[in-house]
C-alpha cells in the first residue's frame, strides 16, 4: 500500500484535468461520476492505506518520493509525501468528508449551467489539500497551501456574473495572501538558518541548533502563525471568511468549514517541535485562539444570515483549536479539527438543504417551523448544533472541546483564565447555535418550503449525523506524532462545570428564543445594547477598520498616481526643451535689421564685460 500514497492526490487532479480540458462538453452524468468518483476512489485508497498503517503494532511513518522538484544551491525540496498518524487523520477527513460533499453536490449543483466547472474546481481543491497535508517539506506544503487558496478564490467567485461574489473572492485571496507572505518569509528564515525545508530533518535540526526561547525560532514561529491565521481565519485576518459564504454551500462545507480553514491548525501541529522552542509564540497562538473564539461567538449571536452564523461559528471553533495548540494540547486540537469537520460539514450541508428547499432564502427570520416539513435537515441541524455546542456525553463535539478546556485549565498559572475564556465561549456557542435551531425549525412557518431534496443530498446528511455523534469515540492516531499532553482529571468540579455549560446555554436559548420567558428586547433596544449589537454584528468593526486603514489609502495612492508621477520628470524635460526651442525660435525672424541690431547689442555687451574685467 505504501506505493499507493502518491495516487491519492493524483486521482482528484486527474478529475480536474479531464474536466478542465473537456471544457464543459462532457455529459452531466460523466461529470458526476468523474467528480465524485475520483474523490471516492481516493477515499477508498486512503482507507486501505490507513488500515495497513494502523494494523502495525508500532506504526512507522514513511516518505514516498516521486522526484526531486529542484536542486539549487543546497535547496533540495522534493515531490515527497510523508505519512504518519497526523497526515493520515487529515487524509481521512479530506477524502471522507470530501466525498460526501461531492456526492451531495451532484444534486445540489445539478441545475447549474457550469456544473463541470464546479467539479473541476472542487477536484482541484481536494488534490491541493491532500498535497498540503502529505507534503514532507514546507515548499511542497506551500504549493498545496496556495493551491487551496486559489480553489477557494475560484469557488467563492464561482457565480462570477455577480460582481459581489467576485469581490468576496478577491478579498479572501488577498487577505489570506497577506498571511501566506508572512509564512513565506518564515520559510526563508528557516532555510537561511537550517539549510533545509524538509520538515522532519528540520525539526530535528531546530532542536539541536536552538535553545528554548531563542529569538530566531520565535520569529519563525510568529511568521508561520501569520500564515496560519490567514488560512484559518483567525485574528487579525479572519475578515475574509464570512464574505466567503458567497460561494455555493457545498463549497462552504468543504473548504470553509471542514478542510481548508483548518490548514493553519495542521501547519502549527506539523511544526510543533518548532513552537515548543518558542514558548512566547505558542502563548500567542493560545491568545489568538481565545480572543478570536470569543469575538466570533459574539458576532454569531447577532447575525441573521444562516450561512454567516455558521461562518462565525467556524472562526470561533478554529479558535478552540488554536487554544488547544497554544496550551500544548496537540492531540486535542487535531481531535477537535476532526469532530468539527464532521458536525460543521453536517451543519453547512443541512443549511444547504434548507436553502435549496426555500429557494435561496438565507435570512433565518424568514424561516421557521421547518421541523416537520424538512425532517432530514431538522435532525441534521439538531445533531450538528448539539455537537457544536458540545452537548455532554452523546455528541462528538463534547469530547473534543471538553478535552481542550480541561487541558487549558491544567496549563500553568494562566490555565484557569484560559479555561474561563473558553468556557464563556462555549456558553455563547450553545446559545447562538440553538438560537438558530429554534428560530429556523420551530415556531410558525414563514416561508413554505418546496419538496425536500433527494437521496444524493440526504445520504451524506445521514452519514454525517452518525459521524457527528460517534466521532467522539474515535481515537485520532497521533500519539506517536506529538509529545504527551499533561494528564487531566475526567471528574471533579471543573469537569462537571465544563460539561454543564452547554446545557445551560441551550436552556438560555430555549427560554429566550422558543419559550420567550426571558425578554431580551429591553436590553438589545437600549442605546448601549443597540450599539453593542451593531458593533458585534459588524464583527467588531474590523472590516471598517481595514477599509479605512488599508484599502482606501491603497486605492487613493493608486488613483492619484494613475499617470505615473515619475513620468512628469521626463515629460517636463521634454516640455522644457520645447519651450526653449520656441523661445529661441522667436528670435529667428528672418529680418536682416533685427539680426544686425542684436549682433551689435551683443558686441556692446561683450565689450562691456571685457572692460569690466580688464
Amino acid at each position: 500500500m505504501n506505493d499507493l500514497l502518491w495516487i491519492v492526490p493524483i486521482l482528484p487532479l486527474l478529475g480536474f484535468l479531464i474536466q478542465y480540458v473537456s471544457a464543459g462538453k462532457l455529459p452531466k452524468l460523466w461529470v458526476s461520476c468523474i467528480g465524485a468518483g475520483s474523490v471516492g476512489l481516493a477515499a477508498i485508497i486512503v482507507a486501505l492505506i490507513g488500515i495497513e498503517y494502523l494494523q502495525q503494532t508500532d506504526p512507522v511513518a514513511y516518505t514516498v518520493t516521486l522526484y526531486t522538484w529542484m536542486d539549487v544551491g543546497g535547496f533540495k525540496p522534493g515531490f515527497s509525501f510523508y505519512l504518519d498518524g497526523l497526515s493520515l487523520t487529515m487524509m481521512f477527513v479530506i477524502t471522507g468528508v470530501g466525498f460526501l460533499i461531492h456526492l451531495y453536490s451532484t444534486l445540489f449543483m445539478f441545475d447549474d449551467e457550469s456544473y463541470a466547472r464546479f467539479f473541476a474546481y472542487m477536484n482541484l481543491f481536494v488534490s491541493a489539500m491532500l498535497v498540503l497535508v502529505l507534503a514532507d517539506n514546507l515548499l511542497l506544503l506551500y504549493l498545496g497551501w496556495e493551491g487551496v487558496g486559489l480553489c477557494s478564490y475560484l469557488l467563492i467567485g464561482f457565480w462570477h456574473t455577480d460582481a459581489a461574489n467576485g469581490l468576496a473572492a478577491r478579498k479572501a485571496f488577498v487577505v489570506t495572501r497577506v498571511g501566506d507572505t508572512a509564512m513565506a518569509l518564515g520559510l526563508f528564515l528557516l532555510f537561511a538558518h537550517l539549510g533545509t525545508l524538509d520538515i522532519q530533518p528540520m525539526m530535528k535540526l531546530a532542536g539541536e541548533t536552538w535553545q528554548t526561547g531563542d529569538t530566531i525560532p520565535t520569529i519563525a514561529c510568529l511568521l508561520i502563525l501569520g500564515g496560519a491565521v490567514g488560512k484559518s481565519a483567525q485574528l487579525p485576518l479572519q475578515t475574509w471568511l464570512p464574505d466567503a459564504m458567497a460561494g455555493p454551500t457545498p463549497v462552504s462545507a468543504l473548504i470553509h468549514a471542514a478542510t481548508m480553514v483548518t490548514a493553519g491548525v495542521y501547519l502549527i501541529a506539523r511544526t510543533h517541535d518548532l513552537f515548543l522552542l518558542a514558548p512566547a509564540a505558542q502563548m500567542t497562538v493560545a491568545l489568538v485562539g481565545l480572543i478570536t473564539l470569543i469575538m466570533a461567538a459574539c458576532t454569531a449571536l447577532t447575525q441573521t444570515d444562516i450561512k454567516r452564523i455558521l461562518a462565525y461559528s467556524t472562526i470561533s471553533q478554529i479558535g478552540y483549536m488554536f487554544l488547544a495548540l497554544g496550551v500544548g494540547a496537540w492531540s486535542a486540537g487535531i481531535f477537535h479539527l476532526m469532530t468539527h469537520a464532521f458536525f460543521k460539514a453536517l451543519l453547512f450541508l443541512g443549511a444547504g438543504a434548507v436553502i435549496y428547499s426555500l429557494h435561496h432564502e438565507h435570512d433565518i427570520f424568514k424561516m421557521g417551523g421547518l421541523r416537520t416539513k424538512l425532517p432530514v435537515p431538522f435532525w441534521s441541524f439538531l445533531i450538528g448544533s448539539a455537537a457544536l455546542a458540545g452537548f455532554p456525553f452523546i455528541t462528538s463535539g463534547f469530547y473534543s472541546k471538553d478535552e481542550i478546556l480541561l487541558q487549558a485549565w491544567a496549563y500553568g498559572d494562566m490555565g484557569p483564565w484560559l479555561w474561563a475564556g473558553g468556557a464563556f465561549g462555549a456558553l455563547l456557542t450553545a446559545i447562538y447555535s440553538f438560537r438558530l435551531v429554534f428560530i429556523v425549525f420551530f415556531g410558525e412557518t414563514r416561508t413554505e418550503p418546496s419538496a425536500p431534496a433527494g437521496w444524493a443530498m440526504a445520504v451524506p446528511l445521514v452519514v454525517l449525523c452518525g459521524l457527528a455523534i460517534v466521532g467522539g469515540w474515535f481515537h485520532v492516531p497521533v500519539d506517536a506524532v506529538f509529545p504527551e499532553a499533561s494528564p487531566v482529571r475526567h471528574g471533579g468540579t471543573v469537569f462537571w462545570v465544563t460539561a454543564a455549560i452547554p446545557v445551560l446555554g441551550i436552556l438560555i436559548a430555549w427560554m429566550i428564543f422558543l419559550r420567550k420567558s426571558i425578554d431580551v428586547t429591553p436590553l438589545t433596544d437600549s442605546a448601549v445594547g443597540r450599539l453593542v449589537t451593531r458593533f458585534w454584528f459588524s464583527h467588531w468593526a474590523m472590516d471598517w477598520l481595514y477599509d479605512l486603514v488599508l484599502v482606501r489609502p491603497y486605492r487613493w495612492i493608486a488613483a492619484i498616481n494613475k499617470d505615473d508621477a515619475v513620468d512628469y520628470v521626463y515629460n517636463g524635460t521634454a516640455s522644457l526643451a520645447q519651450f526653449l526651442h520656441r523661445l529661441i525660435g522667436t528670435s529667428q525672424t528672418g529680418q536682416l535689421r533685427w539680426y544686425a541690431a542684436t549682433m551689435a547689442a551683443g558686441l556692446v555687451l561683450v565689450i562691456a564685460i571685457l572692460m569690466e574685467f580688464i
Partner: protein
Amino acid sequence: MILIALVSILFIGGIIAWIAEGWNRDWPRWVSLISIAVAALLLPSLFLLEPHLSATPATTANSWLILHSIPWIPKFGIAVLVGLDGLSLLMVTLTIFLGLIAVVSSWSEIDHRPGFFQFNIMWTLAGVVGVFIALDMFLFFFFWEVMLIPMYLLIAIWGHENRGYASMKFFLFTQISGLLLLVSILALVFANYGNTGEFTFSYFALLDANLSPDVAYWVMWGFFIAFVVKLPGFPFHTWLPDAHTQAPTAASVLLAGILLKTGAYGLIRFTVPLFPEAAVEIAPLAMLLGVAGVIYGAILAFAQSDFKRLVAYSSVSHMGFVLIGIYAWNQLSLQGSVMQMIAHGLSTAALFMIAGALQQRLHTRDMTAMGGLWVSMPRMGGITLFFIIASLGMPGLGNFVGEFLILMGTFKVNIPITVFAALGLITAAVYALYAMQQTFQGAPTQELDVEDFGAREISVMVLMMVGLVFLGLYPQPVFDIVDPVLAGLYQLTQSTPSWLGSL
C-alpha cells in the same frame, strides 16, 4: 558557425519577407514563419553541446558551449566574436520561441505593408539573438542598436492611436541609454588600452582590464543605467507602458517577452563581471531600485483601466524581482532571476496576446467597457485565468519558482529588501485578480456576439501553458543549463569577498 547561421537566417528571412510583399501579400508571414522555424530547428542540437575546454579562454570558467571568432576590424581590435553558454542558449531559445508565437499570433492582424512589418519583426529578433551571443563589445553594441530601430518602426507605423508619442518616447529612452552604453564601452576600451597598450573590444580581454576603482565605478554606472532602462527598472520605466500599450500585439510580445530580458542579460553578463567591486558598492541601491519597481509597478498596475497598460506595469513589477535577484548575486537568487526571465517572458507575452485578442474583438482596451466576458468567451476566460494566476506567482508554475528563489536568495543578503519585495506577492494578487474581475467576471455589460478563441489561438496558448507548468513542476533542466554559467560568474567575481561569503 551555427550561431552566425542562426542570426543570418533571421536577417535574410526579414529581407526576403520584405521583397515577397511585392509578389503576394500573404507570403511575407509565411516567409517569416518558415525562417523562424528553420532557426528553431537549429536549436535542439545546441542543447546537446557540452562545455569544452579547448575553446575556453583561461580567464573564465569552463562554461562556454561554443566560442567563435572571425577578424573584422583588426586595427581597432574588433572581431566577430560570438559565443554561447547556458544562459545565452536559454535566452536565444526563448527568443526564437516567442518569435514564432509573435508571428502566429499576429497572423491576421496586419494589413498595412505586411512585408515591411515582417521585416521589422525578423530584424528585431535577429538583433536580440545577436545581443545574446555577441562577446565583442562593438558587435554587441551593433546588435543592441539593430534590435531597437525596427522595434521603433513597429510601434511608429503599426501602433495604436497614440503611436507617435509612444514610439518617440521609446526611441529617445533607448537611444539616450544606447549612447550612454556606447560611451561607456569606449571608455572601458580606452582605459584598458591605457593600461595594457592593447586595443581590444573582446569581452574576455576586458574582463582582465585592471581599472582603477574610480574609472571602474563611473564606467559601471554607464553600463548599469543603459541596461536598467531596458529592464526596465524604476525610475527609468516610463517608456514601457506607452510603448507596450501602443505597440501592435506582435511587438508587445517581443518587447515584454525578450527585449526586456536583454537588460537583465546585460547586467548579468557585463555590468557585474566587468566591474565586480563597483557592482558590490551599488548592490544595495540596485536592490532598492528593484524593490521600488516591484511595489511601484504593482500599485500603478492596479490603477490602470487599460488592460494592456496594466500588464505593462505588471512587467515593471516582475522585472524588479529580476533586478533584486541579480544584485543579491548568489546561486539561489540568480537561478531565480533567470527562471523569472523565462517565465515572465511566457506569461506576459500570453497576456499581451490576450489583450490583442480582446482589442481585435471589442475594439477597445478599456476595462471599464468590459466585464462578464466569460459568458461569451469561456475558453478565452479559462486561459486568461491561467496566465493571471501564473502572473501572481502561483506555486506549480514557473513564475513562482523564479520569485521564490529570488526572495530566498536575497533573504541571505538583505532581509529588509526581501521583506519589502515580498509585499509584491500581495500587491500582485491585488492587480491581477482585479484585471480578471474587470474583464471576464462580473455582469456582462452588453450582449456580445464575439468569437471565442479558435484552434490557432488555443494551440499557441496551450504551448505557453505547458511551458509554464513544466517550468513550475520540473525546473531542474533549466537550473542544470544555467549552473555552469553561474560557476563561471562566481569565478569572475570571487575577488570580491566583501559581497557574500555564501557564493
